[in-house]
């Protein structure tokens, strides 16, 4: 995959509709097609640009197709309310990597950016969340919210992380599950009884006739 921002190659904005993407692709393909540049002294350059246009179009279409089934954590790739993102090409490449679901690469680029504002923490949180680093993602999302408390996108993302973190940490049934000791067993007598009964039955016996 080319490292150039595909939207930059096609000279369209990230928010362009599919029709606008296709129109830009057709126009640039017509312009740089080898058949249209036979007598052009810069035919090699035109061919190279033609390939870039093809790759950029394929990449955008693939990202948009994948977008409907993308990972659990989505984000808004716009640059609104953030001058840092608009001028920084590194942040642009972070967005490109995130769109392509290459979160490790996005984190590498983020770690090379010295200034850490709320957007930085938010993007880092999204990347970490999609990599499974949930604790770090929550901390960074909280940091983004504390730096920009009025940003609904950051607050919603933090709520989403906190919601997902509750799934396997609290019991909706109440009570404890026994002590966290190192002895043999699961700490829950019902589970231990079932395991013991199953093992007995494997050996041909029956520990508890009722299970």
């Amino acid at each position, binding site marked *: 995959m080319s490292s150039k921002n595909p939207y930059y190659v096609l000279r369209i904005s990230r928010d362009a509709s599919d029709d606008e993407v296709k129109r830009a692709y057709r126009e640039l393909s017509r312009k740089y097609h080898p058949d249209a540049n036979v007598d052009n002294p810069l035919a090699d350059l035109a061919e190279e640009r033609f390939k870039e246009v093809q790759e950029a179009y394929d990449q955008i279409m693939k990202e948009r197709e994948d977008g409907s089934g993308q990972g659990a954590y989505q984000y808004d790739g716009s640059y609104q309310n953030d001058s840092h993102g608009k001028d920084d090409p590194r942040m642009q490449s972070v967005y490109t990597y995130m769109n392509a679901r290459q979160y490790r690469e996005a984190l590498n680029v983020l770690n090379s950016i010295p200034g850490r504002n709320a957007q930085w923490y938010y993007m880092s949180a999204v990347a970490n969340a999609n990599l499974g680093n949930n604790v770090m993602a929550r901390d960074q999302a909280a940091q983004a919210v504390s730096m920009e408390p009025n940003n609904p996108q950051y607050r919603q993302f933090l709520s989403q992380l*906190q919601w997902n973190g509750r799934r396997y940490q609290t019991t*909706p049934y109440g009570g404890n*599950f026994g002590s966290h000791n190192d002895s043999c067993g699961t700490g829950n007598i019902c589970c231990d009884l079932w395991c013991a009964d199953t093992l007995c039955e494997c050996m041909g016996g029956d520990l508890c006739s009722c299970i």
Partner: protein
Amino acid sequence: MHLNAKKMAVSGLMLALTEACILAGSVLETNTLFLLAAASYFVGIVKREFGSRVAAAFYLAGVLLGFIVSPNKMYALTYAAMGLYILLIEIAWEWMGRTVTEETAGKYGKLFWAVKYAVFNVLYIPAVLLMQEFLFGRRLGALVLAAVLLAGQVGLFFYDYAYGYVQRELWGKLRGRFLD
């Protein structure tokens, strides 16, 4: 879908354990439901660790292999239903998380219970009503049918309780050894 080696290895191991549980359910007839439940919990574990897409692929592979290796295809069908329930509720939790806020978190928690029972009954009620001869060998009377449906609701409570326990306590302790 691009999977790294660790995901493939751990998912493969889980799939093997799933099939072992399904087969063991065929052998240990007194423990069939418990073992099929245990097999279905792996779908939830894979979803937790690797995401929805991998979990869906894992589930399909489990069902397919279950039908191939299990001598009793009914058990593979039961596993398919149980695994589908786990997959759907996990995906529902994820979707609910996309719109949850601090203010609505409490309400969403209660809503999730309703979602669980809705998902279960969408699978359970049609199966009981439409496949009576297949499941029970005869058509059931109204009272017995009602009892079967009610027993299913109670059974779901225990099944879900055990699933939560496995995720929190068992897999919560073991996951570091497999994934780090």
